[in-house]
Structures are given as C-alpha cells and as structure tokens.
C-alpha cells in the first residue's frame, strides 16, 4: 500500500489575533501547527500501513517553514516527506492549489517509483475552512472520492469508511486508488517520542519547485486562481446585554425568568 497524506501548516486558530486596523492576521507569536484534521488523516494512513504494510508519504504546499510541519509528520509515522514550494504558488485559491498538488502527486509517484493507492486529506484546513482541496485534487487526478470519514479501513483493494451524517454515519466503499478526506478517528493521533523526533530531524525533505513539477505556471498562484479576495473585515461581536452578577442563584434566576417572560422571549 502506497499512501499519500496531504497536510497543511496552519496558525493555531485558537490563538490567532486579527489586527483590527488592517484586518490581517497578526502572525507574530502565533504558533504554527499541522492542521488538526490532517493529523487524523496521517494517523489513519499510519494505522493502515501498520495493519497491512506499505509506505506513508506526506506532502505539503507552503513556504519553507512548512518543512517544520512535515518534520512533525515524520516523527509520528510518516516514512517520507516532500515540500512543494515556490513563489509561483503563492496566493493560490483551491483550484490552483489542487492543480499544483495533483502535479506534485505525479512527480512524487515518479520519484517513489510507484503510484499511490490511497490519498488522504484532512476534511478542511482550519485557517481557510474550505474543504475543497481534497475533492478538487480527486477531480484533477480523475479518482473517486469519499469525504467526511470518521473511520476507515482498507481490505483487498477496497477502502471502507464511516461517513459522518446528521444522525449517525453512512457506511461507504470505493475501489482504490481513491481520495479520502478525514474528519476524525476513533483514536487520537499518536504523539512523537524523543527518539522519533530525533530521527525525523535527520530525514531530508526534498523541495519540489515549479520547475521540478514541469507545471503550467499560468494555472498556479494568483494568476491561476479564479476567485479573488475582494475585502476582509473583523466581525463585531460586542453586544450590550444584561448581565446579572453577584446575586445568589435563586434571585438571579428569578430575575432572568421575569425579564425573559416580560420581553416575551420565552
């Protein structure tokens, strides 16, 4: 089984701040992490490899620093990592990103000497929240896709997933090769050990540039992106609500019940 996991390095959205003047992300002091959904995708890949054998390769598109995210992946079970990087790729929307990644998949397959049987992605990145790159990658590659997997297994060339639904899950299958996007797993992703971190540090991470991919650069970056960000703003959330504090619970509750019934809210 040759497994490819696509990961993205993202700012930890629990800790990000937006500059209220410029409406841009304040990057200083904000930790970068592997997109949490991608950590489940990687864990799924590593578990499948452990169950039936094979190799797990991770790929990320991003600036040089994204190599840190790939190192993290190497420390929790990935066998090899590639970074897709270059100025031509900056500003790509999901169509351009998935196009670049689909080219990277082909280049990595050549380098690894075998096609991928299974391509795993997190369901979405927590910075952009689009959930589009996985399906678009599948489209570029002409592969079937299953999205929103909560659990997955591979047997005899068939991948079976539990697909998240409102009131449970759909049990779905498709033949490999296929693209699967992962929401979660029954188990949490493993942690690195000191030894696995040391080993990961020593592994080389080849960088694939536009030239390496022999890619049509007119379909990359801002130029290759049909969607454009027109403006951004910070949502205002401040409300001047009624806050009852410093009262015993029964008095506070009685006051609230009166307020709500008088205003015909309840």
């Amino acid at each position, binding site marked *: 089984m040759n497994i490819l996991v696509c990961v993205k390095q993202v700012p930890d959205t629990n800790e990000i701040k937006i500059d209220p003047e410029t409406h841009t992300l304040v990057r200083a002091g904000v930790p970068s992490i592997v997109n949490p959904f991608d950590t489940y995708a990687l864990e799924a890949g590593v578990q499948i490899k452990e169950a039936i054998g094979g190799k797990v390769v991770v790929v990320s598109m991003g600036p040089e620093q994204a190599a840190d995210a790939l190192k993290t992946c190497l420390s929790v079970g990935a066998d090899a990592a590639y970074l897709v990087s270059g100025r031509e790729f900056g500003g790509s929307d999901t169509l351009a990103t998935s196009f670049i990644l689909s080219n990277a998949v082909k280049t990595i397959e050549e380098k690894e000497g075998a096609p991928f049987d299974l391509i795993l992605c997190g369901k979405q990145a927590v910075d952009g929240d689009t*959930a589009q790159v996985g399906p678009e990658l599948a489209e570029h590659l002409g592969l079937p896709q299953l999205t929103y997997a909560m659990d997955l297994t591979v047997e005899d060339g068939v991948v079976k997933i539990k697909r998240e639904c409102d009131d449970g899950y759909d049990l779905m299958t498709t033949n490999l090769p296929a693209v699967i996007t992962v929401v979660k797993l029954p188990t949490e992703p493993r942690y690195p050990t000191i030894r696995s971190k040391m080993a990961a540090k020593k592994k080389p991470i080849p960088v694939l540039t536009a030239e390496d991919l022999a890619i049509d650069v007119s379909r990359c970056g801002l130029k290759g992106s049909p969607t454009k960000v027109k403006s951004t703003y910070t949502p205002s959330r401040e409300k001047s609500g009624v806050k009852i504090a410093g009262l015993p619970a029964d008095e506070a509750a009685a006051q609230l019940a009166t307020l709500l019934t008088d205003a015909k*809210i309840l």
Partner: protein
Amino acid sequence: MSEAYQNIWVFVETECGKAKNVGFELLNPARELADKKGCKLIAVVIGKDVEHVAKDAICYGADSAILVEGDEYEYYSTDAFATALVELIQKYKPETVIIGATNNGRDMGPRVSCRLKTGLTADCTALDIDEETGCIAWTRPTFGGNLMATIECPECRPQMGTVRPAVFKKATYQEGKTGEIVREDIHVAADAIRTKLLERVKEVAEAVNLEEADIIVSGGRGVGSVEGFATIRELADLLGATVGCSRAVVDAGWMPHAHQVGQSGKTVAPKVYIACGISGAIQHVAGMSGADTIIAINKDEEAPIFEVADYGIVGNLFDVIPAFIEAYKKIKA
C-alpha cells in the same frame, strides 16, 4: 465571454425523495440577487421522485425549475450528482450557481467547479452583488470565524459558491404559484458511480434537528460530565427546546457529534439560544451568533460568551438552572 452566461441557479439538494431545507432557504437571498440583476432564478432539482420538490421550489421563489429524476439519484453519490450538474451547467450556462453547504453540497461543489475550471467560494454566510463589477460578492468566515472575507470570481463562469444552512430563512410559501418545470433526461451508468453506500447507520435515538429548532439549550465544558447533561435536558424539556453542545463536550464523549454547534458542527439560528457552561470560543460563537436572543449562564464573569449574550447570569449552572426552572414554572403557572 460572460454574456453567454445568464440567470441564477440554486441547487436544491434532495435525498430519498425529500428536499433538504437549505435549498429552499437559499431561494430567498437568491431571489433578491436575481431581482437586483434583473435575471431569472432557477431551481435545479436532482433526485428520485422529486417533482414535488421542483414545485415547492417555485412556491419558495424560483421562477422555474430544472428537474432530473432517476433511481441513481435516490441517495447521494459524488459521481452521479456531479456528472448531472456539470451536464446541466454546460447546456444552460447559468451565470451563478448556489449550493447548500451540507456535507453533500461541499462534496459535490468542488468536483463540479473543478471540472468546469471555475471558482467556488466555500461555506458563505452572506451574498450580495458588487455594483461595480456585477459579480456576486460571496462573504464567508475564515480563520475559525476570526475574520470575514468577501470573495469574487471576476473572470470565470459560472461563479459558484456553497452557502451555510440556517443562515437564511425560507421565504413565505406562495401557495398556488406556478412556473415552468423543464425535465432533463440525464442518466449515469451504474459502473460510472464509483462509490457505494452499503448501509445507513443511525446512532442517535431521536433525530437531532438543531437547524430548525426554535429554542436550543446548549451545554459546554462547564457541564462537567454525561450526567451533568440531565440538568441541561430538564431545562430543554421544559422549554420544548433541542439540546446542543460545544465541541469540548463532543471531544470528551459526553454527547454525540450530531448535537455540536459551531464551526466544526452545526450553524444554528434559533429564536433563543441558552449557552450553559460554554466559554464562547469564537469557533462556537460562529455557529450560533445568528440566534435572535442569546442567554448565557457561566461561572466565569470574564467568559467571552457574555460579549455576545443579550442576557447573562454569572453563576454555577447547577444552581442557576434548577432555580430558573422553578421561577419559570411559577410565572407560567
């Protein structure tokens, strides 16, 4: 190029012959956009035995509908739905295609836009027309709701977007309104549908319909345990409310994911949202700030939930909720 493309389409998602609400909801803002542009609003309905959905879509505001029916559309599959929608778009050339941002909509949308090499804006919460360019201005939250971005697709057509359920309200149903229903005979061979649905497993005893609830009583980390939710449920039962929860609760295994409100759960817009023991992380607020009235109960006076609450009590929810139940019963008695 773009002159050939006209009209606004709303994809009305169906499954097992029934429409999902979001499609009807989206006809409402789309109607406004179509009126502003002076173009037609067309509902696209793909499913099995769904002519009634096409008729309803017209009563909810569409001028006409395009209907594709077949056994292969009874349950959603990426291949069948993407194939049918792409074929329709290539034939009719709509200027704009709006899709509900359900799991299926977000599975199909990128497949379609990518095949057509056009832009798709994900999970939007507001729609408008840019008066300068005439393009749809798609507004969406990013960075977990910390930032809103307005996105346009200036050069490629159709311009496409997925829009969150429960952000827009359905228009009033216009009984007896009629419009043309155009049938298109598109079939996808069984072997061209590469994924298979083996079984649909229901894990939740009663279906959780947070999106349509009038009142939601929601519990967070402060509820502390599975048992703690008995208190939340008691209040919900009294008010005829649906029980919701924050992500921390699902992660802790106290409630199933179907109850989760927020960025990685459901977006809800009830009349009343009661947040109990929920700190109000922006990811949670992103999913419930559309509520008409927000009530917060939290023992931490500094909890950010109070910033968005219309009413709040600083106190332990296990003291406040029983006291509230008693006081409320007294008033209503």
